[in-house]
């Protein structure tokens, strides 16, 4: 598939000297959901702000649908919808007027049928004549999404769509995103919730200190980095881990009397059977056994720690 978004050697240094982005390269294919994951201040918003035209890059290029976002900004921007992080709406404008206004800004004639279908999809149709200031926070966010969609963009940027949003609304937002993907929209979202990336992204990009550390399929990332852990709680405390168990590279947590064994989840042999055999040979009695798969969060924390 062709890349709908292509970012090359993008850097940004703010006037104060702060280097927000360092030589970022990124390709995004049509129809995928990419989550840009990173702590606050990592450069996520700067990256999408440059692509969308809110911030000028210091060097490097970004192209959307083959159009440079600076020299060919009209074509590039017609393909982009942006849902900003902060709620920014004209308080006295009605919902439907807000959508018409945005559509007009993008040079498109009013299309009542399309606007109706977008509002219905976002459960806003019955609020179409309400002033935006009368809406709840969740509705305002949905209005922002509706505005970003009403000029029929091919790429949608969601900047922290669920920051400061309650669990209910977050789930609702994810549902909206999945639906948009089903409609063929390419989605790039920034988030610092790993749970969010895990729940909806196809690929995950990890960004930190202005550097894009990696971009990978979510599944591959978790497989490659993902480890399983088995925790074996013992009946009696141990002084030291017996010599006969040294090849398992076990960690011992004295407080909980637990031996921790890490192994490759997708390895051919996990070594669990022999570990159990060796444990009983060493005369250790198990009280409880627990295994768990590392989450994207563990992967992420591991990555961020590695680099720092």
């Amino acid at each position: 598939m062709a890349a709908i978004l292509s970012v090359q050697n993008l850097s940004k240094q703010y006037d104060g000297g702060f280097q927000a982005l360092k030589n970022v390269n990124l390709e995004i294919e049509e129809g995928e959901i990419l989550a840009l994951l990173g702590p606050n201040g990592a450069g996520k918003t700067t990256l999408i702000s440059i692509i969308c035209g809110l911030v000028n890059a210091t060097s490097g290029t970004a192209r959307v649908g083959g159009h440079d976002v600076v020299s060919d900004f009209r074509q590039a921007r017609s393909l982009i919808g942006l849902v900003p992080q902060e709620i920014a709406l004209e308080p006295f404008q009605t919902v439907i007027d807000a959508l018409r206004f945005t559509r007009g800004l993008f040079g498109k004639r009013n299309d009542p049928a399309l606007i109706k279908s977008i509002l219905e999809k976002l459960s806003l149709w019955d609020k179409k004549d309400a002033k935006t200031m009368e809406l709840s926070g969740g509705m305002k966010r949905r209005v922002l999404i509706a505005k970003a969609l009403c000029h029929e963009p091919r790429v949608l940027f969601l900047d922290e769509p669920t920051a400061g949003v309650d669990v209910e609304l977050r789930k609702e937002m994810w549902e909206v995103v999945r639906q948009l993907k089903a409609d063929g929209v390419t989605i790039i979202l920034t988030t610092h919730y790993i749970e969010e990336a895990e729940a909806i992204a196809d690929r995950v990009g990890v960004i930190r200190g202005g550097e894009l550390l990696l971009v990978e399929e979510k599944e591959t990332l978790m497989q490659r980095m993902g480890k399983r852990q088995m925790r074996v709680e013992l009946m009696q405390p141990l002084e030291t881990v017996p010599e006969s168990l040294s090849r398992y590279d076990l960690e011992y947590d004295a407080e909980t009397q637990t031996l921790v064994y890490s192994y490759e989840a997708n390895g051919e042999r996990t070594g669990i059977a022999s570990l159990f055999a060796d444990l009983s040979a060493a005369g250790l009695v198990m009280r409880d056994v627990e295994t768990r798969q590392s989450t994207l969060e563990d992967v992420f924390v591991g990555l961020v720690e590695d680099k720092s």
Partner: protein
Amino acid sequence: MNFQAVRSIYSFEMARFFRTLSQSLISPVLSTSLYFIVFGAAIGSRIDEIDGVSYGAFIVPGLIMLSVLTQSISNASFGIYFPKFLGSIYELHTAPVSFVEIVLGYVGAAATKSALIGLVILGTAEFFVDFEVLHWGAMLAFLALTCISFSLFGFIIGIWSKNFEQLQMVPLLVITPLVFLGGSFYSISMLPPFWQTVTLFNPVVYLISGFRWAFYGTADINIGISLMMIALFMFVCLGIIGWTFKTGYKIKT
């Protein structure tokens, strides 16, 4: 050129004008009526004619200019500052529009509003004093030029302002004195020679003088010079706006 965008911005801005119609129209009309009562009827009756025009009629062009200038600046500066303040300006940056469309939309709407207000004040003046407009075409052209130039100026103020205080500072500290000292209420020939020379540095003098010429055919300053000055002012404003958008100064990081 994205005309649909110009139309969108223009009608959005005009919608705000009509939504706040009472505020937009009543206050300039009321304050102008008060000026007519105080300066035209009360004080004016004791003042001689100026250049063959009764004092009440003499101040009509000046009063219209006073309102038009302040309204142009406040409409245009508020129009662009408010989205900046709300954050909704992100839409203008991310839409396929250049500064040309943005300026046409915002400045066009602000200029339309202040021209409407100017005409309403002209109508109001009819109730208080007798006067005739000698050159209708020139009067309307002057009105339009003034509305456009000062809306451009207001737009610059709106972009450069960091807070509401700054937004009101320039109109209050610069425009009001310039208008009052620009010959709204007197002919500059009534000033001592030294102050007459000083006055020539006030751009508003050229506007009011030219505008008054369109009404009564007499002017403190040659009409050609007046036109040149206002055209110059307009191009300076356009230049500043073009530069601001090109460099992203105060609007982009």
